[in-house]
């Protein structure tokens, strides 16, 4: 699907990172591999540390903390909020939506519309799509996009495939209508035939959680996980990204008549350093323009990696300058997409600890 939005802009981004943190070195003993191999893996994949919430902390806790931080600091007023789009794959409950919980905890007016989207690694893009669409309603001027995931609760600590890279985080992005002639263009694609490449097999209605689904099993690579845990076919996902993302980006740039040299920042989802750097090589973009350090310092928090990338790697520069940026996400679904937009003159762009 091709995407085009006019007269919309991002006016602020806040990322919430849990204080709780563990290093790869501390967790190496959990994995069925000798230390030498694990250390090499650490260097290549960029694993250093990851931040995750304590047991019992849920998506709405991080999200409400983020919005309340903005309210307390005067960067947002409650009465300005017309709608909230919450994107998460780790909701507080099956029902109601996490957005409803957030709405209630913030004490928002009943005119404030809240909607949830279940999406993972492309969740920042799908959230922006929904927020931009809501801004076409005549009375809607300001939408909060909340991306939040606490998937560490669902990853086995003995799964070297997923645990070293998983992170929890939330972000609050303020999206507004503007009289300026802005243009935001994108493209998003999906291949549901590969939906089992990244999934949590049990816990839904197809296969409810039982004592049996909680039993750990060892795979051919020595990783131990249960059907209640997240499972990722790492090699398939890597191949998918390297195969599908370059043609999508080429298609988007060609349609817009944009040369990649004109783009100041390529702020992509970051599953691991190796995958991002190979993608940079495939699309011939210098690493200085395409950071790959989010997994290294925070972990991969699914749809929150792009806003974390924005805040950590560009941050304050976005307060006084405007850059042409390309955002891209790829993963669960499988889904992949990208957007090109002018990002800058933000009211805030920062990170806070939970």
């Amino acid at each position: 699907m091709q995407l085009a939005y006019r007269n919309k802009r991002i006016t602020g981004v806040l990322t919430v990172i849990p204080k709780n943190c563990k290093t790869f070195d501390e967790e190496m003993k959990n994995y069925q591999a000798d230390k030498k191999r694990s250390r090499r893996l650490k260097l290549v994949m960029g694993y250093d540390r990851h931040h995750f919430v304590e047991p019992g902390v849920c998506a709405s806790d991080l999200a409400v903390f983020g919005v309340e931080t903005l309210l307390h600091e005067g960067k947002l007023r409650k009465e300005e909020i017309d709608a909230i789009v919450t994107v998460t794959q780790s909701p507080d409950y099956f029902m109601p939506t996490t957005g409803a919980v957030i709405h209630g905890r913030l004490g928002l007016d009943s005119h404030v519309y809240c909607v949830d989207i279940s999406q993972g690694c492309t969740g920042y893009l799908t959230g922006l799509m929904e927020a931009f669409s809501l801004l076409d309603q005549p009375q809607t001027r300001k939408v909060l996009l909340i991306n939040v995931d606490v998937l560490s609760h669902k990853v086995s600590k003995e799964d070297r495939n997923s645990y070293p890279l998983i992170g929890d985080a939330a972000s609050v992005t303020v999206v507004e209508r503007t009289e300026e002639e802005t243009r935001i263009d994108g493209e998003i694609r999906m291949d549901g035939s590969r939906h089992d490449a990244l999934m949590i097999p049990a816990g839904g209605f197809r296969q409810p959680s039982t004592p049996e689904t909680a039993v750990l099993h060892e795979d051919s690579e020595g990783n131990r996980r249960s059907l209640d845990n997240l499972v990722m076919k790492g090699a398939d996902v890597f191949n998918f990204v390297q195969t599908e993302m370059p043609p999508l980006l080429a298609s988007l740039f060609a349609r817009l008549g944009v040369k990649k040299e004109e783009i100041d920042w390529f702020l992509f989802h970051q599953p691991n350093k190796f995958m991002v750097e190979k993608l940079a090589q495939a699309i011939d973009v210098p690493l200085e323009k395409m950071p790959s350090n989010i997994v290294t310092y925070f972990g991969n928090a699914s749809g929150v990696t792009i806003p974390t990338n924005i805040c950590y790697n560009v941050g304050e520069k976005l307060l006084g300058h405007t850059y042409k940026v390309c955002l891209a996400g790829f993963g669960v679904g499988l889904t992949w997409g990208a957007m090109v937009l002018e990002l800058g003159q933000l009211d805030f762009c920062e990170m806070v600890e939970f």
Partner: protein
Amino acid sequence: MEQKIREILADLRPEFDFTEDVDFIEEGYLDSFDIVQLVAMLEKEYEVKIKGIDIVPENFSSVAAMAELLKKSGAK
């Protein structure tokens, strides 16, 4: 080149004999993480960049397949 590749493989997984005429992937000599590490080691040794789309199991199933991949990637 093939001898050097075997030395790199022996350094990575010393418990296996990479002179054997077997499929390294099917036999479990190399897993997906080994392939990632192997790419980094081969790129450093031969000063080349292996394309992401070429990082598929069949290109690491034998020493000959790896040598072919390296030549394709520009290794002398």
